[in-house]
C-alpha cells in the first residue's frame, strides 16, 4: 500500500492532472480516446433525447387530460384570501402611513387607488352585463359571446363616496381615508351560503373601542350575483367585486392596527398560518 499512500506534492498533482487531461502516450483525453468520447457522447445524447421525449410525452398527456375550465383540485384554496388597496408593505405586513400636510405622502396612495379603479370604469366593464338579482349567478351553459359565460358588471361608482368620482382624493387629506377591500377569486366558490358576505373592520385586539366606518356598497356586502366564478376561460372579463371602507374617526399621530374580516359562511379568518385568509390586517397612521 505504501505506493498508494505516498503524499504527492502539488506540482506532481498538477502533472498527474495534466496527464489525465491529455496523455500523449496512450492518446487518452480525460481517460478516453477521442473516438470513445464521441461514442459515449452519442450514447448520452440518445439517452437524453429519449428521456426528454418521454418527459415531453408525459407533460403532453397531462395537458390533454387537464380540464381547461377549472382545476382538478383546489386543496389549498379552501377559503379566499383578502387584499387591501392601497397596499404598502412595511417590515411586518401592510403599513399605511401618511402625513396630511405633506401632499406627497398621500398622493402616492391616491394614485394607487385611482389606478386600481381604472379596471372598474364603465368603459372597462362594457362587456359585462348588469345584474340585479341578489342570488348566485349560476350558469350551466355558455351564454356569453365566443362560448364564454357572462360576468356581472362592477363599476367604481358603486363605491359611492369612495369611488373617486366625487372626491378624487378618497378622503385622504381630510383624514378620513377610503380603503378598498377585495376578495380573491376561487373557481366555483359560493361564499356566504346564500347570504351575501360582508366586510367588517375593527381595531385589532380592542373590539370595545368603536371604529366608525362607512361601507360602500351599503353594509359592505359583496353581492351574491358576482359568484360563483367560472374561471379565466369561461369568464374572461370577470372582475372581482369590491367593498370600500371609509374610516371616519381615526385618531391622528397614533399607529392603529385595523383588521377587516369578511364575514360569511365558508370564509374562515382564523387560520393562524395565513394572515390574509378571510381577513386583511394593516397598520394605519395619519399624521398632521
Amino acid at each position: 500500500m505504501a505506493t498508494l499512500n505516498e503524499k504527492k506534492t502539488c506540482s506532481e498533482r498538477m502533472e498527474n492532472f495534466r496527464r489525465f487531461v491529455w496523455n500523449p502516450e496512450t492518446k487518452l483525453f480525460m481517460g478516453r480516446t477521442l473516438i470513445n468520447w464521441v461514442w459515449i457522447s452519442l450514447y448520452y445524447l440518445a439517452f437524453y433525447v429519449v428521456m426528454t421525449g418521454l418527459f415531453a410525452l408525459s407533460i403532453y398527456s397531462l395537458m390533454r387530460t387537464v380540464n381547461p375550465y377549472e382545476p382538478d383540485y383546489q386543496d389549498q384554496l379552501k377559503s379566499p384570501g383578502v387584499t387591501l388597496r392601497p397596499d404598502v408593505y412595511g417590515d411586518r405586513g401592510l403599513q399605511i402611513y401618511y402625513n396630511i400636510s405633506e401632499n406627497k405622502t398621500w398622493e402616492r396612495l391616491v394614485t394607487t387607488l385611482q389606478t386600481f379603479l381604472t379596471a372598474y370604469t364603465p368603459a372597462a366593464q362594457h362587456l359585462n352585463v348588469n345584474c340585479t338579482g341578489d342570488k348566485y349567478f349560476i350558469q350551466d351553459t355558455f351564454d356569453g359571446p365566443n362560448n364564454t359565460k357572462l360576468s356581472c358588471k362592477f363599476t367604481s361608482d358603486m363605491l359611492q363616496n369612495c369611488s373617486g368620482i366625487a372626491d378624487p382624493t378618497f378622503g385622504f387629506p381630510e383624514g378620513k381615508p377610503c380603503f378598498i377591500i377585495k376578495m380573491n377569486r376561487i373557481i366555483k366558490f359560493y361564499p356566504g351560503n346564500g347570504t351575501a358576505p360582508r366586510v367588517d373592520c375593527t381595531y385589532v385586539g380592542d373590539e370595545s373601542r368603536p371604529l366608525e366606518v362607512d361601507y360602500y356598497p351599503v353594509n359592505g356586502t359583496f353581492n351574491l350575483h358576482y359568484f360563483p366564478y367560472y374561471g379565466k376561460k369561461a369568464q374572461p372579463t370577470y372582475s372581482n367585486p369590491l367593498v370600500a371602507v371609509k374610516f371616519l374617526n381615526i385618531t391622528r399621530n397614533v399607529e392603529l392596527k385595523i383588521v377587516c374580516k369578511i364575514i360569511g359562511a365558508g370564509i374562515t379568518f382564523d387560520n393562524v398560518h395565513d394572515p390574509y385568509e378571510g381577513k386583511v390586517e394593516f397598520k394605519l397612521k395619519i399624521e398632521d
Partner: protein
Amino acid sequence: MGKEESYELGPRGPAPPKAPKGRGRRKKEQLEDMKKEMDVGLVGAVAAERLLRDGPNELRPPRGTPECVKFGRQLAGGLQCLMWVAAAICLIAYGVQEGQGDRGSADNLYLAIALIAVVVVTGCFGYYQEFKSTNIIASFKNLVPQQATVIREGDKLQINANELVVGDLVEIKGGDRVPADIRIISAQGCKVDNSSLTGESEPQTRSPECTHDSPLETRNIAFFSTMCLEGTATGLVINTGDRTIIGRIASLASGVENEKTPIAIEIEHFVDIIAGLAIFFGATFFVVAMVIGYPFLRAMVFFMAIVVAYVPEGLLATVTVCLSLTAKRLARKNCVVKNLEAVETLGSTSVICSDKTGTLTQNRMTVAHLWFDNQIHTADTTEDQSGQSFDQSSETWTLLSRVVTLCNRAQFKSGQENVPVAKREVIGDASETALLKFAEVTVGTVSEARGRFPKVAELPFNSTNKFQLSVHTAGDRQLLVLKGAPERVLERCSTVMIKGQELPLDAQWREAFEGAYADLGGRGERVLGFCARWLPAGTVAAGTDPEALPEVAVGLCFAGLVAMIDPPRATVPRAVLKCRTAGIRVIMVTGDHPITAKAIAAAVGIISEGSETPEDVAARLRVPLEQVDPRQARARVVTGAELAGMEPGVLEGILRAHPEMVFARTSPQQKLVIVESCQRLGAIVAVTGDGVNDSPALKRADIGVAMGIAGSDAAKNAADMILLDDNFASIVTGVEQGRLIFDNLKKSIAYTLTKNIPELTPYLIYITASVPLPLGCITILFIELCTDIFPSVSLAYERAESDIMHLKPRNPRRDRLVNEPLAAYSYFQIGAIQSFAGFTDYFVAMAQEGWWPLLCLGLRPRWEDTHEQELQDSYGQQWTFEQRRYQQYTCYTVFFISIEMCQIADVLIRKTRRLSLLQQGLFRNHILVIAIVFQVSIGCFLCYCPGMPNIFNFMPIRFQWWFVPMPFGLLILIYDEIRKLGVRRHPGSWWDRELYY
C-alpha cells in the same frame, strides 16, 4: 535492535553490599564472596532502591491512544471531513442570507445541524463499536498477578513478579512462567518453551553454559514470559520490564505506524470524486446564475447550496452500519474485529503471511510416522483422532508399542479419565507426552500396561548418552527397553525385528534404517529409535545403579523408529487451498528451522505438490545450486541468515520469482521486512500470528490477525482482528465476508448516490427556469437520513452474485470502490430518470392544482414574493402567499414520493451488478423486502400524519400522485435489465466497459 549496545547481560548499577572486605584481598576470595552472595541474594533495601530506579518489572502497556483522540479520529475520516466542510458552508450561507434578511434561510441552519449531528452520531457509533471490541480483547488478559520465587537476604520469598529487580536471585520450576530475563546459574533438566518468542515448538534446554554469543540463541538465558516446562533452575535477573527481549519487541511493535486501511483509501478516493463533481456543478451554476442576472451574493448562496446538496449525508451512516453488520457476522464466526474498516481489508488481501507455530500447527508434538517392518506407517495426527490408523497386526508393532509404553517417564495428571486423550494434561517433556498420548490412543491404558510390567531400574535421558532405558519385570523374565537418538540406539542393536522375526542386523537392514531415518528427518520430524531385549529374571536387581545399566543394554533387538512433529491443524490445508483458489498467496514466516518449516508448508499446501525449491532442482539435475534457474523452482525456503545478507530489493525479486515462499529462522524485524516487501509489491498483506515475535509484523500489516486462545497479549494488541477459535480457516470466512461487503458496499453506495441527482436537479431548475422550488432542504434530509437508510443497509445482506472465492483479490489500483462507470451510471442515467420522474409528478401536481407547466416557468420571483397575496394561477384563481407555500410543500412531498418510488426500483436493480434480477431472486433478501415496506410506511407516515405540513413541510398528497412516478420506476428496472444483459452477453465490449460498475 542493536543488542550489543543496549542489551546488557548482567546486573547493573552499584554492587550489592558485600561482607566487609579488607585491603589486599585477593581476587579469588572476592569471587568466593560473590558465590556466597549468589546464595544469599539481594538485600531488601537495595532491591527497593533498584525497583525505584528501574520501575516495576512489567511491560508498560503500549501507550494507549487517549480516548478523546480515538473519538476525534472517528470524526475525522474522509467522509466526515467532507461533511464538516459542508456544514461550515451551510453556516456561511445561513449567515449571508440572514444578513440579507432573507426568509427561509433557516433551512441552511437546519442542514448544518443535521450534517453535524450525522457526523457526531456515526462517530459515537464507531467509537462504541471500537470500544466494545477492545473490551472483548481486554477480557483475555490474565489479570491474576504473577508470583515469583526470589531469594533475598538468604530467605526464599514469594513476591509479585513485578517487584523483581535486576540482580535478584530467582528460582523457577516446571510450570512457572519465567518472571524476567534471567541468566541461569544452575539448572536441573530445565526446559523452556520459547515458541512465542522464536517460533520453535520444541522445548529448549536451559543450562548454565553459554553456548552462543547471541542472547537469543544461548542456553543460559531464559526469557521473560516464556514457560518453564520441566526441571528447575536458579538464575540472576539481568533485565526487567521493558528492557527484556519481550519488552523490546513490544516496543518495536508500538513504533510501527498503522497503515491506512484500503477501505479508508477507497473512501478518500470517492470523496475526491464527490468534491470534484460538487465544485464543478456549483461553479457551473454559479456562472449560469451570474449570467442570468442574479446578484453576486445570491449566486454565491446558490453555489454553496449546490455543493452541499452534493454531499451524500446518508452515506456515512450506511457505510458505518454495513461494516458493523459484517463485523457482527464475523464475530459470530469467531473473528473479532477491532477496527470496523478492517472488515473489508481482509477481503482485499492478496498475501497472507502466516506464522507457523500455533497458527498453522497445533503447537503440540504428536507422533506422525512410525517405521517398522521396513515400512513407514502414518499415525493419526488430527486434533480429534478422527484419522485413519495403520495396520497394527504385526508382531513387531506389539514389541514397539510395548517399548513406547514402558520406556516413558511421562504420565497423565490424575483425575482426567473423562477428558479425551488429546486434551489431557501431562507431566513430562513434549516428546514423551506425544509418545504417551500416542500409546494411550493406539494400545490402550498406559498405566495398566505399566502396572503389568513393574519398573525395576531406569536410566533417564541425558545429553551424553542420548538415550533412555528402563528394565521391567515381565513374568519370569525381565524386559529391557531403550529409546533415544536413532544412531545411538542402532549402535546397541544386533538384531532387528521384522514381522515378528528377529533377523540379524546386517548391512542391508542398516541401509534400510538409514534410508528411513533420513526420510523421516527430511520431513522435519524428530525421530527416536526404539529397541528391547528379553533378559533372564534377576539380571538386573532392583536398586541397581542406573549408571551400570548401559552395560547390560547391548545386543538389543531393534523394534522401530517413531517420528514426531508439531502437526498442522486439520482445517489448515483446506483453508490454504481456498486461499489459493481465491488468488491469495500464503507465505509462511516462522522462527523455526527451515526443514520443519518446509515440511509443514508442504503438509498444509503452502508448498504445493510437485513444487520444487532451488535446492530440490539442484539435487534432481545434479547441478550446483548457483546454476539453477529460479524460474524452475516454484517454491523457495529462505532463512533469516540469508535474508540478513540480502541487498535491499533482492527480497522483492525473490518474492516475485517464487510464488510459494517459506521464511524460516526469521527474527521479528525480518518479519517486518518481509511484510514491507510484499507491500512494496503492491500487495495488501494480512499477517497471522500468535507470538510476541509476530507483533511488529502484525502491526505493520494491512490487517493483523492474532490468535485469541494461544495468542500473546502483545500480538493481540498489535492485531486488527482476533480469531477467537485460533482457527486459520476463520480467515477464509473473513476473506469471504470482506469481499462480500466490498461488493455490497459498492451497491449501497451506488444506491445512495443515485438520489443525489433528483435532489439536486430541482434546485438547478429552480435557479435556471425560475420555477417554484420543487424540493425542499428538510425533505432532502428526510430522504437521506430517514427513508433511504434502511434499504441501503439492507443491501449489505445481499448474497454474492458469483462464487467470490474463485475470483482474484481486487487490484487496489484498478478495482475501486467507486469508479467512473458507477458514478456516471448512477448520476447521469438512473439519477436522470429519477429526476424526470420527480419533475413529471411535480408538474402533474402543479397543473392539477391550477398551475400549468408553462406558467410555472419564470414564476419564481412572484411566487416567492411575500407581499403578493393575489397571484393568479392558470385558471384565474388568486392565491395568497401562504396558500402558495402549502402548494410548494405539496410539490416537495410529491417530489419526495417520486424519489422514493424510483428508489424502490433502484434498490431492486442494485441487488445485482451483472446477474439478472430474476437470477438473483427478487425476494430472497428478506431484509431488503422489509426495508422497502418500511420505506413506504415512513413515506405514508410523513405524508398523512396530521401536523406534518407545519413541522416538516410534508403535505397529505393526492393518492394518485403516488402512481405518476411508477412508470419511471419500471423504466429503471427494464433499462437496468437491458444493461445487465449486455454486460453478460458481451464481456469486455464497449458496453461492458462503460456500463459495468
